[in-house]
């Protein structure tokens, strides 16, 4: 059977006679990799562009149309030692990139205007004390207006738009007072300038915009980075399937190009990307990603196969019943939507507080103006005082208090391997006081590992590893990895569903089912742990039993201990067998566990804890966890999780260790502490400054300086969120 790979789905036109593809590449992290990849790919004839982006770990390639098959780039990268997959920019990510560029452009314009207006303001301030001709002062004011007005009109767009959206929905947000404050300050400055007044406040308005834009840009940038990493991981999952394009011809196509009714081939060791029914072949499939159950299921004609199941032994032909989108996932998604809606009520409560702020500020400013007029001040002085109130109460410090801490903390979390998926995850994670772990794929690693390597003679084990290289079976792969085998044994034959055999120097070697190796008796006698799968190895008359299982994450025990030291309750809820869960719980020192739990039971348990006032952090992987992830107060998933649970978990962590769970809790607690501190700082500042502004002592310029001062104080305080204790 001939297999071709078809990547035309990902190829884009890049100008006359040029084609373009983006590849996500695994393992690029330094200048060396970058140079190696770019040289290696540029050396191919007809390649016109090969450029690595180190920030999002992608390669952009362009070549002359029709000269090269994109699959060759992937082969070339494999020769260079990098795993690469074609990448399709998700529309959500493209929007984030465009948004972030726009913010940077606004920031550039605002910063330019601030510097130039300041250059003109400083002579005016000093000139007011010494001797500046009124004409010169007016000239400088007009120049400031010339710079500040168009700059503010352009750079203020993010705020004006958001304020307009809020107003047209008949609500308010933080951007409404910002927009009104900026517009009023600018408008009043123009009026002042026309009347040859001593003070204009172009500098205050434009500086305010610059400060706010810095905060927005940093926040946006963090989110864009997270999204890029998530996009790569989706691409690296290599969502392709082997589709039959002729009776005996298969083509490796992206899942997006597969439709219901197509027939795909599922080879041993492959994960199914579609839902369907087996029409030919016999095999065992591992559905642990879907059900949490680690025992294999036998599949033959008529057995349904769900996306995410791993084919273990034989080759299967599967008729697709639903392509990647409309699947079992859709069912769970409906469950999820309900759970998510229930939670947003809590968020609405938090929003209401910030929405109250705007009307209070506007009322205060208006009352100030009316009050001063009532007590006999001129309209001009009253309006100046009113604007000072607006500027000084500008929710800058208040608006920065939470987002800056959030940005700094999420940056620190990103460095320790945690990605944030939802805006208020930090606040909720900090409150968590009980952690529920799923077992399969969360406390354990999704890859299999050999547990009894020390019980087997080294030379026999090495041979077993080399023999294992000739099989696609995941258990064989685990044996080969454990040995570190590189050279397969020549002439090894794989017998489907049984094992591999070969002969070396006249001695017969077999690796596979115990019956295949004549080791049934040995397996029956051996004391094996409940969770392990067993594979036998025979060399001549010698028999060995190799036991393979999903290993616990290397630092799982330390992490559980660290959580208990922080007085956080720990418990395991798993859909797996009693024996397997008990073994894991005892190995980790977890006092409370439940085995054989269905998704509905998990939610019931979470609700029960909730009713007792306990804030639950659910750490889970597997699609059956998705509804409970959404039901918990806050949730976290390892990145190896099925798509769905990643999309719903509030936080996602990377890599093999479990330590990011503790790090995330530490960072979020510190962050919440600093958020509260910042809020008090901002509120305290307002309590002090607002009465002074209302009393009319403060000019808008001093108000702007005070506002900036408080913002800087809040920002500096936020930087402390980077350092949290890192002990596990």
């Amino acid at each position, binding site marked *: 059977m001939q297999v071709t790979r078809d990547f035309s789905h990902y190829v884009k036109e890049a100008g006359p006679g040029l084609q373009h593809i983006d590849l996500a590449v695994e393992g690029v992290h330094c200048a060396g990799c*970058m140079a190696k990849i770019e040289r*290696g790919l540029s050396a191919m004839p007809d390649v016109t562009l090969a450029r690595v982006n180190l*920030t999002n770990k992608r390669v952009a390639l362009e070549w002359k149309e029709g000269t090269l098959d994109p699959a060759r780039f992937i082969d070339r990268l494999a020769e260079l030692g990098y795993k690469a997959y074609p990448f399709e920019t998700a529309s959500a990510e493209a929007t984030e990139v465009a948004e972030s560029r726009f913010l940077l452009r606004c920031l550039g314009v605002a910063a330019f205007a601030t510097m130039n207006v300041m250059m003109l303001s400083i002579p005016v301030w000093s000139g007011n004390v010494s001797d500046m001709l009124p004409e010169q002062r007016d000239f400088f004011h007009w120049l400031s207006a010339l710079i500040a007005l168009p700059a503010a009109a352009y750079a203020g767009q993010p705020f004006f738009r958001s304020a307009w959206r809020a107003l047209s929905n008949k609500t308010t947000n933080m951007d409404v007072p910002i927009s009104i404050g900026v517009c009023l300050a600018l408008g009043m400055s123009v009026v002042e300038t026309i009347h040859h007044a001593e003070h204009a406040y172009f500098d205050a308005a434009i500086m305010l915009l610059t400060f706010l834009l810095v905060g927005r840009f940093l926040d946006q940038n963090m989110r864009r980075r997270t999204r890029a990493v998530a996009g790569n991981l989706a691409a690296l999952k290599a969502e392709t399937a082997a589709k039959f394009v002729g009776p005996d011809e298969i083509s490796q196509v992206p899942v997006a190009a597969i439709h219901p009714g197509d027939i795909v081939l599922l080879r041993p060791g492959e994960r199914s990307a579609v839902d369907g029914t087996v029409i030919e072949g016999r095999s065992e499939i591992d559905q642990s990603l879907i059900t949490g159950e680690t025992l294999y299921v036998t599949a033959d004609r008529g057995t349904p196969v769900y996306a995410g199941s791993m084919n273990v032994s034989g080759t299967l032909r599967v008729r697709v019943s639903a392509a990647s989108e409309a699947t079992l996932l859709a069912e769970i998604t409906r469950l999820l939507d309900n759970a998510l809606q229930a939670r947003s009520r809590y968020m609405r409560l938090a929003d209401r507080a910030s929405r109250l702020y705007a009307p209070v500020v506007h009322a205060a400013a208006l009352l100030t103006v009316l009050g001063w007029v009532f007590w006999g001040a001129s309209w001009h002085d009253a309006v100046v005082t009113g604007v000072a109130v607006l500027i000084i109460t500008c929710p800058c410090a208040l608006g920065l208090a939470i987002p800056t801490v959030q940005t700094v903390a999420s940056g620190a979390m990103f460095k320790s391997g945690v990605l944030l998926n939802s805006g208020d995850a930090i606040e909720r994670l900090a409150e968590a006081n009980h952690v529920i772990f799923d077992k399969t794929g969360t406390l354990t690693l999704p890859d299999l590992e050999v547990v009894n390597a020390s019980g087997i003679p080294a030379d026999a084990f090495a041979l077993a590893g080399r023999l294992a290289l000739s099989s696609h079976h995941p258990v064989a792969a685990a044996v080969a990895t454990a040995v570190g085998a590189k050279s397969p044994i020549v002439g090894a034959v794989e017998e489907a569903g049984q094992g591999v055999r070969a002969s070396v120097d006249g001695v017969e070697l077999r690796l596979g089912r115990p019956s295949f190796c004549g080791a049934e008796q040995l397996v029956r006698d051996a004391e094996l742990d409940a969770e392990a799968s067993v594979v036998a190895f025979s060399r001549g008359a010698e028999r060995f039993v190799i036991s393979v299982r999903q290993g616990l994450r290397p630092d799982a025990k330390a992490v559980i201990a660290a959580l208990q030291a922080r007085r956080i309750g720990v418990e395991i809820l798993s859909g797996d067998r009693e024996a397997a869960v008990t073994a894991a719980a005892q190995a980790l020192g977890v006092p409370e566990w439940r085995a054989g739990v269905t998704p509905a039971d998990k939610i019931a348990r979470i609700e029960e804890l909730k009713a007792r006032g306990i804030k639950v952090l659910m750490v889970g992987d597997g699609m059956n966890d998705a509804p409970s992830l959404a039901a918990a107060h806050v949730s976290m998933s390892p990145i190896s999780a099925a798509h769905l649970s990643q999309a719903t978990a509030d936080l996602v962590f990377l890599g093999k260790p479990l330590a990011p769970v503790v790090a995330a809790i530490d960072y979020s607690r510190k962050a919440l502490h600093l958020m509260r501190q910042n809020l008090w700082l901002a509120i305290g500042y307002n309590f002090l400054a607002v009465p002074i502004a209302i009393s009319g002592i403060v000019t808008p310029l001093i108000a702007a300086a005070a506002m900036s001062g408080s913002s800087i104080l809040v920002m500096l305080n936020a930087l402390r969120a980077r350092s949290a204790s890192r002990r596990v």
Partner: protein
Amino acid sequence: MEILVILVPLALALGLAGLVAFLWSLRSGQYDDLDGAAWRAIADDDPPPEPQADLAQAKR
């Protein structure tokens, strides 16, 4: 004070030149890969030993 006639336009022109340069650099994608740019600055132009064979071939 006539000097202002020269100095003010000069200052504004310089500022604008800076802004235009920034916008150009943004448009040409110089902020797309900040991590990579940091490494490229210190990367050697001479290729490391292994790919030198390629280079020799290319020269020929």
